[in-house]
């Protein structure tokens, strides 16, 4: 589909006055599906012709068959069946044209919605996390749902309106050929349509903008509230949630009434204009007949023509009436499409041969804009980590540890400096190679609505490069979650439910670890990912990793002393800067800040020694 291919070159947002934007919106859609719309519009034209044909055939039958037959014309009586058959033929043509017109119009409508949705969701998957944090999930649902719908609302009546355009032109020419005054009387209402439309657009656009925004907000409140369902239950805050939702939904209802009120006045005005035109034709026509310029038949024909035109003209009214909604909906879609992906993909392949990769951070700074001004999450960090080393990142809460390791997995790019693996700048490397060899495990494990196998392998059986069942089991074993999976009725095929609702926090975390381990990564980034895992198991996992397939480079954000001690060296981070780097003992000797942290860790370890053991320790023992 061209929408995605072209969007990188041309902004999706439309420029210009409402009328220009409307024409462009229509133009793009017609170009996107030329054949569908060619068919829809030409069939609409056939429909228009057939509509006129019905009245012509009826006129002919009346004059040539019905009236003579009643007057006693035998030949005319024989033609009765013929007349009937001709009307039947036209009726069938008309019905087929109607069916096909709607089939093609509907097809175009559905295809356009699909295009927008494919493009919007591609953006969701492409845009950086920073963008996602600024846009609530419910709003994004609304962009892909209600806004896409709004943006295409104009395309249902459009082929009809365009198809009968020819019919309207022919009718206008016919009117002018009959009598100029008659034609002017009939068409005088047209400029009024334009005036009405300008007034309508002016009132409608702000009303629709507000309604679509509120639609998204209602979806957002609902989404957040349903995600929080367990909390709502445990605190018994159903009434409070209801109030919050009702307040938003009431605002939406009021906005919809406002939209409806504007529309309520526009539609009758548009309906009124052809009728007024018909009456004007009658008055002017009678006067022209009186003066002998035209005869009665001309007036009747003109009046009848206008009656015929009333319906197609109404189709134009629908298009115009839907246009503000379509433009607003499209504007909201375009904002997603035009959001800049600040992680442009690289094109250099990375084929590491060793089991671990060298990781370098060279003068790396990461700055984000906040309402309080720019904030450096990471500031001028230089680190060179040899292949196969395990490095612990230590620092107090908010020191920038997560931001730092996120850069190594290219979840974001540095604002200054460079991050390199095996000497290659991450920004230059093909994204698929990065995700194949660098595994990042976040603190909050996300579980897909999929089977255990799908969640670990993140591929379907038979996909190129998909992990085999044996490999999946190996990973599950390494992450010490194999016993949980074996206990499930369907094993690897057991469905895990949305967000892994059936698993405990610790199980989710170990599943996420298995997901990283199955890929045999060259760089493993654990952002406090083992917090729910027993220290002994954590150690077993890391040693297991080495014996299984060489030693990947490991970056480990950790809070536990036991985790820190697993590392070859420690990097102490505070305020986004590296304070010191060395072995645990070296830092303990020369870095007072680290000493303070470590003492807290020590105290914690002490406390734990007298208090704590972990769930996993219990489980394994019990399982034996």
């Amino acid at each position, binding site marked *: 589909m061209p929408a995605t291919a072209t969007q990188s070159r041309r902004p999706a947002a439309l420029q210009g006055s409402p009328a220009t934007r409307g024409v462009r919106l229509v133009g793009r859609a017609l170009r996107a599906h030329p054949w569908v719309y060619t068919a829809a519009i030409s069939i609409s034209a056939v429909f228009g012709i057939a509509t006129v044909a019905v009245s012509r055939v009826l006129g002919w039958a*009346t004059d040539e068959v019905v009236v003579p037959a009643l007057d006693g014309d035998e030949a005319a009586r024989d033609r009765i069946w013929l007349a009937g058959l001709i009307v039947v033929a036209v009726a069938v043509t008309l019905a087929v044209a109607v069916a096909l017109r709607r089939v093609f119009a509907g097809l175009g409508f*559905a295809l356009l919605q699909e295009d927008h949705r494919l493009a919007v969701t591609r953006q969701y998957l492409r845009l950086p996390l920073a963008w996602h944090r600024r846009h609530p999930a419910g709003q994004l649902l609304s962009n892909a749902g209600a806004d896409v719908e709004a943006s295409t609302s104009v395309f249902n009546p459009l082929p009809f309106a365009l198809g009968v355009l020819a019919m309207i032109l022919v009718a206008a020419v016919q009117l002018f050929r009959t009598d100029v005054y008659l034609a002017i009387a009939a068409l005088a209402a047209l400029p009024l349509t334009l005036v009405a439309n300008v007034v309508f657009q002016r009132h409608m656009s702000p009303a629709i903008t507000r309604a679509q925004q509120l639609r998204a907000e*209602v979806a957002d409140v609902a989404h957040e509230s349903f995600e929080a369902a*367990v909390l709502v239950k445990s605190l018994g805050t159903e009434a409070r949630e209801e109030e919050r939702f009702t307040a938003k939904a009431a605002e939406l209802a009021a906005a919809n009434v406002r939209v409806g009120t504007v529309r309520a006045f526009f539609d009758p005005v548009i309906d*009124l204009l052809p009728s007024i035109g018909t009456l004007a034709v009658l008055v002017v026509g009678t006067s022209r007949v009186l003066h002998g310029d035209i005869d009665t038949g001309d007036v009747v024909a003109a009046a009848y023509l206008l009656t015929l035109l009333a319906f197609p003209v109404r189709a134009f009214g629908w298009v115009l009436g839907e246009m503000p909604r379509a433009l607003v909906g499209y504007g909201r879609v375009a904002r997603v499409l035009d959001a800049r992906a600040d992680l442009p993909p690289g094109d250099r392949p990375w084929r590491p041969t060793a089991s671990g990769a060298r990781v370098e951070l060279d003068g790396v700074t990461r700055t984000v804009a906040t309402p309080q001004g720019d904030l450096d999450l990471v500031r001028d960090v230089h680190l060179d980590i040899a292949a196969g080393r395990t490095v612990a990142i230590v620092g107090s809460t908010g020191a920038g540890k997560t931001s730092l390791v996120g850069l190594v997995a290219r979840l974001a790019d540095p604002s200054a400096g460079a991050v390199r693996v095996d000497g290659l700048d991450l920004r230059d490397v093909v994204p698929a190679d990065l995700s194949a060899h660098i595994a990042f495990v976040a603190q909050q494990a996300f579980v897909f609505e999929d089977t255990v196998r799908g969640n670990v392998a993140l591929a379907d059986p038979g996909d190129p490069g998909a992990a085999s069942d044996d490999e999946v089991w190996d990973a599950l074993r390494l992450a010490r979650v194999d016993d949980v999976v074996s*206990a499930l009725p369907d094993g690897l095929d057991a469905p895990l439910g949305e967000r892994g609702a059936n698993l405990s926090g610790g199980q989710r975390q170990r599943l996420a670890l298995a997901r990283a381990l199955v890929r045999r990564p060259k760089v493993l980034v654990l952002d406090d990912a083992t917090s729910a895992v027993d220290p002994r198991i954590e150690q077993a996992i890391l040693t297991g990793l080495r014996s299984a397939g060489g030693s990947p480079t490991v970056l480990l954000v950790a809070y536990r002393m036991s985790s820190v001690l697993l590392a070859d060296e420690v990097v102490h981070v505070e305020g986004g800067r590296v304070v010191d780097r060395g072995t645990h003992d070296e830092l303990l000797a020369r870095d007072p800040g680290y000493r303070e942290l470590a003492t807290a860790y020590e*105290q914690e370890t002490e406390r734990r020694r007298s208090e704590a053991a972990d*769930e996993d320790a219990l489980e394994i023992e019990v399982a034996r």
Partner: protein
Amino acid sequence: MSDTDHRMAPASTLGVFATLRRGTQVSPQLLDGLVITVLLAVVAAVGRVVVPIAVQQTVDTGILAPGGPQVERVVWLAAVATLVLLVGAVCSAYVNVRLFRSSEAGLLALRTRAFRHVHDLSVLTQNTERRGSLVSRVTSDVDTISLFVQWGGIMLLVSGLQIVVATVLMAFYSWQLTLLVWLCFVPLVVVLQPLQKRVNARYTAVRERYGAMLGAVSEAVVGAETIRAYGVADRTQRKIDASIGGTRRAMVRAQNLVATVFASGVLVANLVLAVVVVVGTHLGVTGEVTAGQLLAFLFLVQLFTGPVQMATEVLNELQNAIAGWRRVLGVIETPVTVVDPGADGVPSPRGPARVELVGVDFSYPDGPPVLQDVHLAVPAGSSVAVVGATGSGKTTIARLVARFMDPSAGTVLLDGADLRDVELATLRERVVLVPQEGFLFDGTLAQNMAYGLRDEGDDEARVREAVDALGLDTWVDELAAGLDTPVGQRGESLSAGERQLVALVRAHLASPDLLLLDEATSAVDPATEVRIARALASLTQGRSTLTIAHRLSTAEAADAVVVVEDGVVVEHGHHHDLVALDGIYAAMHRAWVSQTR
């Protein structure tokens, strides 16, 4: 419990009229002022037939008048017609406004009711539907109805009126032909009925596909970090693409059928013309009708067939609305398996709570038994720790005491009263569950902490007080914006430990008589760990506490320990007694001691 009992109904199974009846029961506002709206619509409908009548009158009595065209008469006719048109247009606008007002008010009630019902359903039922799909039930499904009510309702009315007016006028010219015209439409009506059912089924499929699509999009949006980190955007995209494609295909299928149905209406309407020409001429030849009557009749037939076509269109759209309506009503009709006795419940006065589980069995729908004949007691003011392996059923015990669901057999007693007889509002005041991972709303720290507060009052001051009482003031003061610190979506700007602290402050503010703690397994930084321990100590002070323990230290400190294995209570007693018993708990304890040395 059967499989279907706990599941959320994909859609209500009511018929069209039953759906309309039930729908208007839930949203009585839809019928507000309907009589006046209908009267206004009648006037608006008259406005629609005035032009053809004016044309006919002008031609017959104006232009073709004996003695030449009567301009004055035509001007008068046009003036009167214009006046009627204007009155009709004003009425029509007013009808639209009234319909918008009543439909939005009615659908607001429907949305709100469905939303509330989702929260009233048991946790089990909630989990049978994806979150994104649930969202579609209170958003786009309702929008489908609103589109119809505002447009279709009035169209149906106007079309019906036009059909009546045209029939009366036609009968005035020839009752035989009128009968014939009506007879021609009988087959259409017969064929239409089963077709409408299929249209409905296809529109229902569209609504379901749409819900599934939002579910897939929701997963991609919430799981953005994981998708990015593992480079599985392509795979996720394939899933989404499939759901988008499914929605498109369902739409096309529905639209194609609707096109066919509508076209068959057009076909019949125009075939009627042929029939009238043929039969009418024969009647004319036999002297039953005159030429003038037949011509007038042919003109009137078109006034009749127009609204008939419009009516088939409206009926198609009605099926779409019914499909949406059924999905929303399906939510409302899904039975609440955890029934609230309401104000009829037994009184459960505040004070130290005593909880007992008596012979409790539980199994998840279609699942094996999770708990079997569990007996357990938490005496007032005491602390009990439940230990056992993952999957042993210990979390289920907490959920049963919080009454997220009811036991399959046996009873849970709160101060001697069956939980099922205690008003839920009272229960939620007295019993609060602190889950392992508390949900945070996109807002400030203070807003999240104050979340459980029910009564009016100075939230800020109470939050402050709670933070101080739990010894968390130093933590809050360390944060850049203190209590006003934004926590981000789902609290992602905070660490796991900090999110736990928020959950503890919430529990403190809820001030329950019984605290259910699902102990968090996550290790957190030492400072936070110490804070959590301290906060927990003052939170549990003087309250009955049932803890799902993941640490033996918690078990050791508890007044009693319950060991659960495979859904059965295998050991029960104080830590020292259980260690002395030399059973499962003692084995756990040995493993723990050896590990920490």
